[in-house]
């Protein structure tokens, strides 16, 4: 009962602190939005379009083909200089400059070169050129057919082009079709389904570490010492604080899950598996937070080291980018931190429709992390409270 009173007092104190609420809910949601928007469209090349100053129907058709190509994410620029600047700043993979006089050149039967600007040392640009080439080739096929038919029959180029478009629609060309072999993704889905679970992992941990500062503060202001002078055992204090921070981690997780589902349309997968994962991760965060509260001497130390440690571990564990992208040795190091196992479990649930059985190994490792952290936290905090008269 005494432990629950400690829990009640700690939870009430946190809910009265508006700054804590900012870090608990508003900041994670803001970061989810920023990262969610940023990591969408990674399966398309980013291409800048600079339309010709003097344009005609042929040039317009080419621009429309490029704009509608599914593999390209295009943005139109008024000037080549602006597009070059965006390319230089790595905001684009390539820039297509539609040449002036394209219509006239094609009607005259001349070959036209469509320049595509790329960053020479980066290979994404050269791959983007191939995608642009496919669209240009499809467009050029109709122009070739029109020129050929005009030459064979003496019709005007425009008449033949209209005929080529009609024939193209009715024709049965050799097609290229895709066939997905491996539908089991090693990555979280893009967009908010990427940012929401990863930020849940990151912020529940960081917030729990920040909670450690409150424990240090309570120690330093002598609250624990006064409590220990009353008939309250150190064990009750430790248990009460641990339950409080576990509840806070669970509340934060559930808020992020709810906001993700309602505002960002995130499908969290199997509810039972997701619920167990949220609970086990909250235990890991609680263990880390209470341990920080026991080990650090001043709240400033926690404020300084907590965010840096949280962000660093989050990066190592794949919260900021998929571990599949980093070198092998760094991936191996990543699995030394619990974040990697949590992100892997979320990937199984969100990308592979996994259930509780599919994430049992990840849950086992996370439970082991939680057990070690909670044991250490309990031992060190009790020692700190009993040996140091509550400070």
């Amino acid at each position: 009962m005494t432990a629950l009173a400690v829990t009640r007092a700690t939870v009430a104190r946190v809910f009265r602190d508006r700054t804590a609420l900012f870090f608990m809910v508003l900041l994670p949601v803001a970061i989810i939005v920023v990262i969610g928007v940023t990591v969408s469209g990674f399966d398309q090349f980013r291409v800048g379009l600079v339309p010709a100053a003097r344009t005609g129907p042929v040039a317009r058709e080419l621009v429309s083909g490029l704009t509608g190509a599914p593999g390209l994410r295009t943005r139109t620029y008024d000037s080549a200089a602006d597009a070059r600047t965006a390319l230089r700043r790595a905001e684009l993979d390539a820039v297509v400059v539609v040449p002036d006089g394209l219509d006239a050149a094609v009607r005259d039967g001349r070959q036209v070169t469509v320049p595509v600007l790329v960053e020479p040392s980066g290979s994404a640009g050269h791959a983007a050129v191939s995608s642009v080439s496919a669209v240009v080739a499809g467009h050029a096929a109709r122009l070739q057919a029109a020129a050929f038919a005009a030459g064979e029959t003496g019709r005007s180029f425009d008449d033949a082009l209209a005929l080529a478009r009609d024939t193209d629609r009715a024709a049965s060309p050799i097609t290229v079709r895709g066939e997905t072999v491996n539908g089991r993704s090693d990555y979280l889905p893009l967009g908010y389904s990427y940012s929401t679970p990863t930020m849940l992992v990151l912020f529940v941990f960081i917030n729990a570490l920040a909670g450690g500062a409150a424990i240090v503060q309570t120690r330093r202001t002598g609250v624990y010492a006064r409590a220990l002078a009353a008939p309250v055992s150190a064990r009750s204090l430790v248990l009460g604080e641990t339950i409080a921070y576990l509840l806070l981690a669970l509340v934060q997780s559930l808020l992020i899950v709810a906001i993700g589902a309602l505002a960002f349309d995130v499908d969290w997968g199997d509810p039972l598996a997701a619920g167990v994962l949220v609970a086990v991760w909250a235990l890991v965060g609680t263990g880390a937070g209470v341990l920080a509260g026991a080990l650090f001497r001043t709240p400033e130390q926690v404020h300084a080291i907590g965010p840096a440690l949280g962000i660093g571990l989050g990066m190592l564990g794949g919260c900021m980018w998929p571990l599949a992208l980093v070198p092998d040795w760094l991936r191996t190091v990543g699995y030394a931190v619990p974040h990697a196992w949590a992100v892997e479990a979320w990937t199984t649930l969100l990308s592979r429709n996994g259930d509780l059985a599919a994430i049992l190994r990840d849950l086992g490792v996370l439970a082991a992390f939680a057990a070690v952290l909670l044991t250490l936290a309990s031992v060190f905090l009790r020692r700190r409270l009993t040996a140091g008269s509550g400070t």
Partner: protein
Amino acid sequence: MRVVLAIAAKDLRQRLRDRSAWVIVFLAPVLISGLMAMAFNNNSEFRAELGIVDLDHGAAATGLTQVFESPELSGTVRVHPYGDKAAARRAVDAGRAHAAIVVPEGFTAALSGGTASPVTVLDSVDFGLQAQLARAVTESYVAQVNADRLSVATAVAAGVPREDVPELVARAALSRLPEQVRARGLADDPLKVISYFGPSMGMFFVLFCVGFGARGYFVERQQGTLDRISAAPVGRGALLLGKSLSTFVYSLAGLGTVTLVSWLAFGARWADPVGVAALSAAMAVSVVCLTALVIALARTERQAEGLASIVVFALVLLGGNFVFASGTSLMRRLTLFTPNGWALRGFTDLGTGVRGWTAVGAPLLGIAVFSAAVAAVTALLLRLRRTA
């Protein structure tokens, strides 16, 4: 002036004795930007491991393989031949190949008319961009074949008798697509990840100085230090200047350390060291202005701490400190409402070989406008508080 320096030196000594501040301003940004540099060290290049299954064994299929092995794609694509579709599927399934192209039997024969099975691109959900490349190159190649077939069909539709088709096919085979794409490289330096994230993380953590400075002010007020200084023959201006100077020096030292380590240890490159120094100094000035604003807004140490944290995270989120050169155009526009967003634009331009005023002129002006606006609001708040 001596008083100003004495106050600044006292503040700096206090700050340097605080090991937490060392961690957050010097150690954390260096470690995190180093981690980012290592994570993306060999990942800046796009690579595609593509399998090819030639069931046609004709000249057209060989031509397609040669396109994938051409010098233009040699830096991007590595071709792996497979004997049958099942072997290619296994390779894609296991991740040994990112995608595979299966050229069907009869592909070459289809050049001279008739029907042909589709060319199949086997892909994996995790390598969408590589599959897109495989598909695009194949489509470009097939487009020439289809163009010849379309030329004949259009000529027939335009009135050429059907019995002339064999001659038409021969003449169409000599045609070339009238539009060709040609890649041209920019002369600028490529932007390295560390050239962006080094200063980006430096700014993120240096912005925490706003919290240190503001909290320090309230602690000193609580301890009576400010009253004791006021009792001495020290003007308010000298006190303000001294404290601002210490925050400026500390912020500049933090940013300087991160840029120096990023340059020496992780290979960051910026075209103009003077530009780097100017951007860092401007950023340190805005940290000073933001600290003054938080002090003017807050009434207690706790309020100052919370307000500073909110300001820091709002600025880094809007300023794009966590986002490498991507995001939407709206996000890029929003960065221009923050000093760190402007500074990052300057560092990006310096990182791509642009020098001098062209690279840092607009960013310095943007940061100056932001700092002046913050200073004006702060002055207004202080005046309002005095009159109240």
